[in-house]
């Protein structure tokens, strides 16, 4: 009889081996998300402090709330499709999983494309990081969010590709759950950013 005592990383796939019952990778993802809260918290603080520091440059009047609302809606819908992708892989229905993971990636990409388009509009209208503390903080904050979305899309593509090669299977559903945690977190951050960055300055009378 042979008993395998697994190495730490291989036990990560089987939550019941760990002291807390939660798998190592999921616990690590929660820790990382906790850290990210402070990261975005610091960026948001800087933005709020500089919300009126426009140094005679353009301000929130450049924001196109209708456009950003649409891309916000698309990003939030990608959270729904992420949930459906997870349900697919948990049920062992890899076709359903692939459809929804691709949909998630596509919606994320549309959001990212919208952000790039928006940035180019702002740049063409004379807003860039050197203009004022307001725009420095705006570009750093929303830019970092965009980078997070981009990394998420990379991971979605990798998940899709490894499901095609048979590497990612029903047993690895937790990998997708962890990826989903990240993706939902990035979406939640955007809800905050849309409210604090776009709506409050544009509607709160600070736009002049």
């Amino acid at each position, binding site marked *: 009889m042979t008993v*395998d005592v697994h*190495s730490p990383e291989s036990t990560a796939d089987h939550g019941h081996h760990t002291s807390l019952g939660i798998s190592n990778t999921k616990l*690590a993802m929660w820790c990382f998300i906790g850290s990210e809260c402070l*990261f975005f918290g*610091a960026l948001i603080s800087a933005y709020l402090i500089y919300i009126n520091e426009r140094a005679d440059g353009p301000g929130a009047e450049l924001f196109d709330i209708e456009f950003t609302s649409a891309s916000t809606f698309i990003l939030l819908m990608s959270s729904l499709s992420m949930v459906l992708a997870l349900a697919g892989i948990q049920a062992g229905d890899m076709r359903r999983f692939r459809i929804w993971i691709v949909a998630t990636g596509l919606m994320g990409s549309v959001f990212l494309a919208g952000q790039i388009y928006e940035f180019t509009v702002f740049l063409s209208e004379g807003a860039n990081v050197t203009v004022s503390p307001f725009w420095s903080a705006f570009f750093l904050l929303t830019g970092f969010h965009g980078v997070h979305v981009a990394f998420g899309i990379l991971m979605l593509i990798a998940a899709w590709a490894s499901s095609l090669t048979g590497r990612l299977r029903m047993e690895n559903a937790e990998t997708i759950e962890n990826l989903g945690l990240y993706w939902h977190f990035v979406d939640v951050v955007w809800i905050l950013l849309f409210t604090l960055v776009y709506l409050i300055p544009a509607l709160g009378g600070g736009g002049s």
Partner: protein
Amino acid sequence: MTTLAERPSASRSRSPFRRPLAETGLGSWFTTVDHKRIGILYFVSAMVFFVIGGVEALLIRLQLATPDGQVLTIDQYNQIFTMHGLTMVFFAVMPLGSAFFNYLLPLMIGARDVAFPRLNAFSYWVFLAAGLFIYSSVLLGGMPDGGWFGYAPLSLVGGDPLGYTIGDATTTQTIAGNTVAEGQRMVFYSLGLQIAGIASLASAVNFIVTILNMRAPGMTLMRMPVFVWMILIVSFLMLFAMPVIGVALWELMMDTSFGANFFDPAQGGDPVLWQHMFWLFGHPEVYILILPAFGIVSEILPVFSRKPLFGYTAIVFSGIAIGFIGWGVWAHHMFAVGLGPVANSAFGLSTMFIAVPTGIKIFNWIGTMWDGRLRLTTPMLFSIGLVAMFTIGGLSGVTHAVVPHNWQQTDTYYVVAHFHYVLFGGAIFGLMAGAYYWYPKATGRLMNERLGKAHFWIQLVGFNLTFAPHHILGLNGMPRRVATYEDGYGWNFWNLVSTVGAFVIALGVLVFIINLVISYKRGAEAGPDPWDARTVEWLTTSPPPPHNWDQVPNIRARDELWQRKYPTQGQREQVRVPAGGSGELEGDVAPGTTAPTEGTTGATQSPYTISDPGYDKGVRHDVHMPSPSYYPLIAAFGLPIAAYGVIFDQPAGFVFYAVGALLVLGGLFGWVLEPPTDPSAEVAHQ
């Protein structure tokens, strides 16, 4: 049960490299994922940085030995004192803590490795890459010169009022055919510390998961050694502090390299924002530096007092309290900024509060030693040294909490005296105690006691000669960070004493390093448990096998090994357990009262033989340890290469960005696609 080899995907190799499988030889150090070898790498690298930082300290003291010092120019002095601070904080004391975390954490909680061994290797290589990157500034226009706190906007580009050039981005120099703007010194600071921050963040996640999830059977949280508790607290502090400084450093870099306006008051930027963000990170950072040392002495004092740790619960909870209150005291670094009486009073009060849990620890350590049979070995001497020296630093710290008093001390040598008493007298003494204590575990040989004691006394005398005069100098008004001072202020004598003391410390450290080197070959054989210790890392051989244990120990007590050695119903020794001390095991089998398997007294069988109920000796145990990997190294060194993209002008910068990004992404993808344990790797058998 599922084995890795049964996973079809795992057997297919997608790697462009052959998997490095060698466990020995020089090359294996670059690919190792063994927490013990990574711990040793951390220790050796951190000692190198410690010596570099020490040489910088000696240069500072040489410059200040006499009035109108001519050893360094003002420009050189600014670089040296900045790099001394950065080196000691980020590249010596923090990684020395990491060295002990790495080596001991799995051994202390009865695990085979950390939760993510390759991430652990990645942390080490990122730390090393950050150190090399920040020191490469010597060749690229000078080292950072804005102080370790890097106060913006002073750290931004521009000349200072006295006409000394801090940095000037308009002038460029050509290096290897590429132009590098001068005045990039603080860019090295911001990028170097960010890279180091990634290492800390990865370690923090890794250690938290390891501690919470990988404990041996029976190792409840309240049975963990205090050192493990301190690792847990420090990891949470790093997890939440690093992103804050990360954002501040990004903003600084945006200002210096890309013309942003975060900290430029002329454009509406707020210089106080930098101070808030820096110290919101900076004060938890202080506890990141000191709590590992607190954990170390909490392990050492009971062993050499031959008593359980007094007030285990109080020490653990005061550590947690420090972890929480540490987030609410940062503005005591900013009392002179002008935040107003309400903010100053609030932060003054919270600062006084945090002295309470620290005091609890001190009293518990004294309680541990009280009435014990003390053995004054080198680790014990250093531990007692910490208790004494840290108390002095703690008391001067409380004086900083008094706001009017603080205004007198701000930016004087009194502050320098305070933080060297807590960080050298505290952290370094504690880490050196740990080095003497666990050296036999890592090498199998004891360090020379005679040299060790000589080191302790030389260092204790030198330390007090160096830093005690700083109290007097500070109260006499000598400002910090000045490159030189004039004759006639009454500062000459104590500055000279301090310089002499610095060289005495250097002598002590030299003795330490000699001891480390010669004991490796010539030290006395240690055996598994040379100190008659209490915790389970002494249960396995010295040095431990790669898989740490043939069978993971079952934990039934806080002082598990002690209880195995001295069962209370046995003939050897009755352990006196004070009220409130460790060793209470409510609702559990009383320690040692039931001998594990043979049902006789524990004395008949070696306590180092792991014999646990339910362990079937007929079972063959295969231990799959994670295989070595190139990818952590590749991904880690992509980071500084990408960072040079900010330093160099285009188009060379783009090349650096591209190569760096390719290495990081390629390394990460290779990492993800290779199985943690190579199917062809050998299996350790019991």
